[in-house]
């Protein structure tokens, strides 16, 4: 039983670390900002979430009582990751960083972004 639990913890920790590494690798390697945004927001969040889950099982099995604080951190990360990603994407659009590869931002899309920021600036 203990052996099985230890294997599960080891699997979660290693898998989480590898997924997070993949996210960071995407951040370092991809050619433009919007593509880079995909790595950290999802892969890193999921990877760290898996690591925290492994730690939750570890501390729940070795110490008396259930350790729920890791679950709180995981929940917090999953709630905040899309918000910071959305804001960073808006900053990038505001600063005029287009996608260098693939389908570019159309004229109409670009104009709505600029209009909206100007409205905000006026109010």
């Amino acid at each position, binding site marked *: 039983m203990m052996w099985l639990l230890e294997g599960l913890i080891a699997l979660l920790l290693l898998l989480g670390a590898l997924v997070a590494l993949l*996210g960071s690798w995407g951040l370092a390697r991809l050619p433009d900002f919007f593509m880079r945004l995909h790595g950290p927001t999802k892969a890193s969040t999921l990877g*760290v979430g898996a690591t925290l889950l492994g730690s939750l099982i570890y501390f729940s099995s070795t110490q008396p009582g259930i350790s729920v604080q890791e679950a709180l951190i995981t929940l917090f990360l999953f709630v905040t990751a899309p918000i910071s990603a959305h804001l960073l994407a808006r900053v990038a659009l505001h600063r005029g960083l287009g996608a260098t590869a693939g389908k570019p931002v159309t004229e109409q899309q670009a104009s709505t972004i600029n209009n909206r920021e100007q409205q905000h600036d006026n109010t």
Partner: protein
Amino acid sequence: MLSWVVPLAMGIFALALLLNLYRLVKGPDIVDRVLALDTMMINSIALLVLTDIHLGLGVLFEVAMLIALMGFVSTLALSKYLLRGDVIE
């Protein structure tokens, strides 16, 4: 088994942090740097929790939670500043 898995996972996270550092230094735009900092915060939470397991302390969650909170708030403040030139309007 955990005695070698935990240091290995720590090594992988350290590598991930180095990759983030590369993006932080290279840029090219300031948004890339903010994104790299945000990712470093997230990865360091995992590194901290792994250290906790490795040392068998079980007391570092509070630190991890504080880093998570600080990382989110600072990313929010930086993007607000870049978007509007002001943090609180």
